[in-house]
């Protein structure tokens, strides 16, 4: 053979090393594995998953909320979808796993948002000053959450606990719609129930929550 191809190694390396520069490989691999375990009936995987998703969403929220120019929204929908893209090696997952992901993410997002509300209230009470740095357990710079928002969120959280004792499916519908930002159709798909069931659950829960949170504006 007259020539050996020197670029061979280079190309080979490029093919394997350049995955996605922005994704930490371990998180990526982990969540896929965990979701697969879960679909195989391994229940302890749920807690592990929750921890990973919660951690990731928090980090994302931390990065992103700081940069929301007007701080008008928490953008939870975008966060959850982004977390999904970051965490999940989509090729390997089937629909069922995807559904599980959004179910977990909705719960994780609820916890994050409620933590925000609590922190916001605490800070407001402490004089409304935002500290430059927060201790390790804090969430970093906060979105522009008014005290009213924070109160409503805490009331919502309480109401959702109550709703869970009345009809846990309705609690999940609200979580998926509100915290993961899923549409009615997506929610139905994730929960494996009919579109109509979700619509009806949402209607009732929405009316009930409006009433529980104190009615008119």
């Amino acid at each position, binding site marked *: *053979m*007259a*020539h*050996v*191809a020197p*670029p*061979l190694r280079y*190309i*080979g390396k*490029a*093919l*394997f090393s*350049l995955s*996605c520069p*922005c994704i930490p490989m371990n998180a990526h691999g982990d969540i896929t594995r965990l979701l697969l375990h879960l679909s195989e009936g391994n229940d302890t995987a749920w807690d592990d998953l929750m921890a990973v998703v919660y951690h990731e969403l928090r980090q994302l929220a931390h990065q*992103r909320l700081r*940069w929301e120019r007007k701080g008008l*929204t*928490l*953008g*939870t929908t*975008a966060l959850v*979808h*982004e977390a999904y*893209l970051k965490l999940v090696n*989509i*090729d390997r997952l*089937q*629909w069922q796993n995807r559904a599980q992901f959004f179910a977990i993410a909705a719960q994780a997002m609820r916890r994050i*948002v409620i933590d925000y509300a609590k922190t916001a209230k605490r800070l407001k009470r402490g004089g409304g000053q935002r500290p430059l740095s927060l201790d390790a357990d804090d969430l970093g710079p906060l979105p522009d959450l008014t005290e009213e*928002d924070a109160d*409503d*969120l805490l*009331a*919502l959280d309480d109401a959702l606990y109550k709703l869970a*004792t*009345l*009809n846990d499916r*309705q609690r999940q519908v609200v979580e998926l*719609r*509100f*915290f993961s*930002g899923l549409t009615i159709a*997506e929610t139905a798909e994730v929960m494996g129930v009919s579109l109509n069931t979700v619509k*009806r*659950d949402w*209607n*009732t829960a*929405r*009316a*009930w*929550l*409006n*009433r*529980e*949170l*104190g*009615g*008119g*504006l």
Partner: protein
Amino acid sequence: MTPERWQRIHELFQETLDQSVEARLAFLKEACGPDKELFEEVSSLLAAAEQPGRFDRLAERFEEPVATVPQVIGPYRLLHELGHGGMGTVYLAERADGQFEQRVAIKLLATSARQPNLHQRFLAERQILARLEHPHIARLLDGGMTIPVPGQPEGLPYFVMEYVPGQPLTTYCDVHRLSVEQRLRLFETVCTAVQYAHQNLIIHRDLKPSNILVTDDGTVKLLDFGIAKLLEEDASETLQTLTGLPLMTPEYASPEQVRGESITTATDVYQLGVLLYELLTGRRPHRIPSRVLHEVARIICQEAPQRPSTAVEQVASENPTAINHARNTSPERLRRQLSGDLDTIVLMAMRKEPSRRYASAESLAADVQRHLAGQPVLARTDTLGYRATKFVQRHRWGVAATVGLLVLLAGIAVTMTLQARRIAEERNRAEQAVSFLAGLFGQLEPVNARGGTVTTKDLLDASVAQVRHDLMDQPLLQARLFGILGKVYELRGHFAEADTLLRQALALHLRHYPADHLVVAESQLSLAALHTNQSDPVRAEPLLRSALATFHRRLPPDDLRQIYAMLELGVALSDAGASDEAEAIFRELLNEFRPVLGTHIEIASALVYLGGLLTQRGAYDEAESLLQEALAMRRELVGNEHPFISNALDALGDVAVARGMLDDAARYYGESLDVRLLLFEAGHTDLAASYFNLGVVAQAQGRFAEAADLLQKARTSYVDAFGAGNPNALDAAHYLAASLDTLGDRSGAEALWQSIQHHDSTYVPHSGSY
């Protein structure tokens, strides 16, 4: 409150909502009867439902409606739009995490995101583009897929590129009133950047002033390398067949682009020629008033552009400032500067035939340099003319093997897709690799001091040896390359080599993946398709069953891979004589996918196969109508010059034969041969099929000499490709012997019969329609 009580409230609330507004109160009272508390609960919910409450306010606040264009993409925050075009929209953006003070340009591609492989192809392309590091090429920094949103569930691919604050090349030159010489210097720089990309196996394919920016300090930067390719591939099945035109700028499109032929480095050379034309004269070589494809194609493929020096006169009369001011010269002086060398250089770069242009961007730049240095340019001489066309015979194989390997390696990342029965598409891809090679050989020619010849087969063999040896420690890459090389062998008719490689690819994949992994299934499908092509359906069937099971389990229902596997399985079953099962498979496929896909190339294939099967089963009317439908569908999708067309015509010929309508049959088979003659080199087994069909009909019509001639050609091709024992070769021998016998050539016929006996003592002639 108990859950049961709540359930009752929930149901009653819903039932009440189902009533008309006026009827609700009465309905509710009636339903609650004496249960006042129930009435209170439900009516307060009704009240809460009718007007926005605090929960609604929260929901509005937090459930951000996700716009199709996100504010933030990955770690970047979009600042404002820089521009948009057929490819998508470009935004100015900055790092949102504050890690760097860096402004970037983000190109959000407008693609149909439902392409099954878009994501993978995109990532592969990004890896290749990330290798381009050149001072005059805008760096690709990052890329990914946007967050899926409703209506865009797969997300859109985006590229993050170095932001170049600058003006389009032509604008820059005019604003700064650059002279011809200054313009040529900038153009040379553009050529070096293009040449660099070509050496990295990347073709730009959309070079035009808006993709070439010049910053205030005079630095040239080329944008968007390779992005057009991604979009073309994405559009290949839908857009391109509808409009005929990929998403390019017609004035800058090369003839081969307009005709949908292979894109090579010569395409970029052509576009460089157009660019130079515009830089020098102030107008583009072609005026294309219409966007109707055939009109665009006619102008680009047939009309010779005016010489630049002539065009100057016209520009001078229409828009004098373009010359007096922007070029800081007079029309007459400019005309004299351009006539001669520069006219020739531009027109040589823009020749209609890719092979007759400059062999590379570098040689184009070199000629520009010679002109600037006052040396004689090469453009006038025509020795470059036929370089690329016959490259295989003229180049030493050492270089060939190396470059071949490179191209194939790059090819995996760029074009690795399904390996299924999309023969034409794959052939096209193989041809692209070959013509890419041709372009590179043009550049490498000076290296080839000594003579010697090389064939494609040599090139492939050398590549296999190299892959086998050098990639021993990278079994997955090796497996993918074996898979690709195997398919190229198959396309070139080298079935034994293909068989070895595809089996090894499958074995390697099975060693590293679970048996029901998609990669394994694709590998099985690929090998099975070869077996079917080799007339060995018994080996194909179990592979296909296994692949199909994996696809069904792992892929969404609209993924085409399932169709490929079903088509292949139907063909294998039918070849193996299981026509009931085969028919069921085809009908299932059509029932399931036709409503979804409509006019689609795979649906047409299913129709052809089912039509063929029904012909065998005697259901001629349905067969004929399905086949006519398939033929029309295919013509709509791929035009007339395509193997798909000849295959459909053959199937129609078969129906005619079965009905005894031999004139019709001869006509269909003849049309089919006409198409194949345009597509294949002599000796190709598709041509053999045509010769065989026509030979059998000629024999049945008593034209024995003609029949003998046709059947002889068919047999020779089959024997060369598959060996004398191949069933098709035996069939050809059988019919040939009969013709020879009738013509009085007893010994010729004897020899054939003996040969048939020797290879298959139980031979019975083709059990099809004859």
